[in-house]
């Protein structure tokens, strides 16, 4: 009989407690989870974890930040599990297993200027990398963050976006919303178009993008137009996942499994895979 507290079975969750819940937008909440002994496991920016609410179900989420004593997940309400998660209150026990996936290439990006382009809930995975860059500020050059959502209400992490991140040295934050609305005097328009307006230089820069598939598609085109090479562009993919360990089969794109070999790919890697994402 395996030891339930210290089992090593990658398909069986460890129990964690939700200690704090933040309402980011009408349909996004951030959950802080931890155990009595501290964080359940260490994660690198961009890595994933399988979160389960017993008995509802399990879902793969990107860890939006690993703090000293807890993990954060920003979760959008889209399906059965996420609806259930949005109902819970602090003190709830959840299951968690991971970390899964490759994460962002934080070391390879050292010494570069960083351009982060996010849309909607796509900022959640980017945030782990952005905050990592801030925590190791001297390792990275200029940091540019471009973020858009449908409306002001739909912007995630507002406090960081408007108050904290713009204060970081050598960091610029651009925010846009899809349609004009009262009280918003910032930029209006889609992310790819705004990106072209800002027209960042590809020189010594790594672009990291995450968002809805259609946004990613146009952002990639825009970056290419601006002269970014395929090696300079990083994106994260999503697929339906069940096991998280490259066994159950469904999250493959070609012979790569998103849960194991991804979710982070450079555009150069993606172009070698079948266009099924």
């Amino acid at each position, binding site marked *: *009989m395996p030891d339930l507290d210290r089992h090593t*079975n*990658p*398909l069986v969750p460890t129990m964690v407690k939700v200690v704090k819940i933040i309402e980011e937008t009408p349909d996004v909440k951030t959950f802080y989870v931890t155990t009595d002994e501290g964080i359940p496991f260490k994660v690198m920016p961009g890595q994933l974890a399988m979160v389960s609410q017993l008995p509802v179900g399990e879902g793969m989420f990107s860890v939006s930040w690993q703090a000293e004593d807890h993990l954060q997940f920003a979760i959008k309400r889209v399906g059965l599990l996420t609806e259930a998660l949005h109902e819970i209150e602090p003190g709830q026990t959840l*299951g968690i297993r991971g970390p899964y996936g490759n994460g962002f290439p934080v070391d390879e990006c050292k010494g570069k200027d960083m351009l982060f382009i996010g849309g909607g809930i796509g900022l959640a995975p980017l945030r782990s990398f952005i905050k990592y860059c801030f925590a190791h500020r001297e390792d990275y050059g200029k940091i540019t963050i471009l973020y858009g959502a449908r409306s002001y209400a739909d912007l995630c992490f507002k406090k960081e976006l408007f108050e904290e991140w713009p204060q970081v040295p050598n960091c610029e934050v651009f925010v846009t919303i899809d349609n004009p609305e009262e009280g918003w005097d910032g930029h209006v328009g889609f992310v790819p178009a705004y990106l072209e307006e800002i027209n960042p230089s590809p020189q010594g820069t790594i672009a990291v993008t995450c968002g809805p598939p259609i946004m990613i598609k146009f952002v990639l085109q825009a970056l290419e137009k601006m002269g970014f090479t395929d090696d300079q562009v990083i994106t994260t993919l999503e697929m339906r996942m069940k096991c998280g360990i490259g066994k159950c*089969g469904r999250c493959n794109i070609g*012979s790569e499994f998103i849960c194991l070999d991804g979710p982070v790919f450079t555009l150069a890697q993606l172009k070698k895979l079948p266009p099924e*994402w």
Partner: protein
Amino acid sequence: MKVLPADKIREALNILAGEAEVYAPLVRGDVSGYIKWTDGPGDELALDILNTYMPPKHIVMPQTENMYKFIATGKDAQVTEIVTAEGPRIIFGIRGCDLQALHALDLAFLTRGYEDEFYKARRQDLAVIARACYQPGPACFCESMGVDRLNPEADVVIHVLGEQGLAWEPKTPKGKDITAKLQGILVDKEVALPQAADMKVKVDITGLSEKLAGMFEHPVWDELSSRCMNCGVCTYVCPTCYCFDIQVHNRGEAGNRFRCWDSCMYKEYTQMAGGHNPREFKKERFRQRFLHKLQYFNERYGANLCIGCGRCIIMCPNEVNILEIINKLKEVQVDA
């Protein structure tokens, strides 16, 4: 050569079943499969049919397999038991094709990153008594898929001699242990092994995996998939298809999470909560199945995920035929 006389086969299986779960090719009503040997009424040991309809994969990955039990009360939740099915198992009479399928499953479940502990528990104490296959069937093409049907890599190899019983050839220490248990009923005898018939169907797949890498968007997939109706028969009767789903079952506070076979043929398989489905249509799902078998698995693990048993050809209600597909894929021109 050791020989297990025909009239002692049942006795031998009963002896082995006393110490391990024994899975043997049995016919039970309309179906045949590697079914747990209980010497029960209605089960007929099938050494005289070519192969069983259902593959032996369920021995290492049951169609429904409990993973762990839990209790969830209010805000609390805990896992109460991890169900790992350890213990000795013996597969009796498996052929080279199905054995190679098992090796492909080993690659998927035990290599490249994580080990699947549920699979491993069932696999590690598994002994294989494989059968040399002298008379391949008309849909068989295992040799083209690299199977050694006459010398399967197993703990014991048996050769079916008809009325004389089975020639019994232990190959490994594990096989010698099993043989020792049958000491009383095995006899030493000179026997002539059967004459091996040639395999009628041959297909050369050299270079196919590489060619397919450039054919993802080829229009031929439309034509090839037109006949398919996207049911999951081929994936479930395939000894190498291993995709699974993880599901939960609960009654009140207690429940268990289990996994069950899943199929890339179903729309739900890749349906994401947010609505997007990367393999929304029949063609995409069909293509996924064949590319997984003939290209992706090869790229990742260096082996084919098809072992030429022919079950999918035999069972498909709409006559989709993997041989025909391989041949057409080989024929089409790919623009460089």
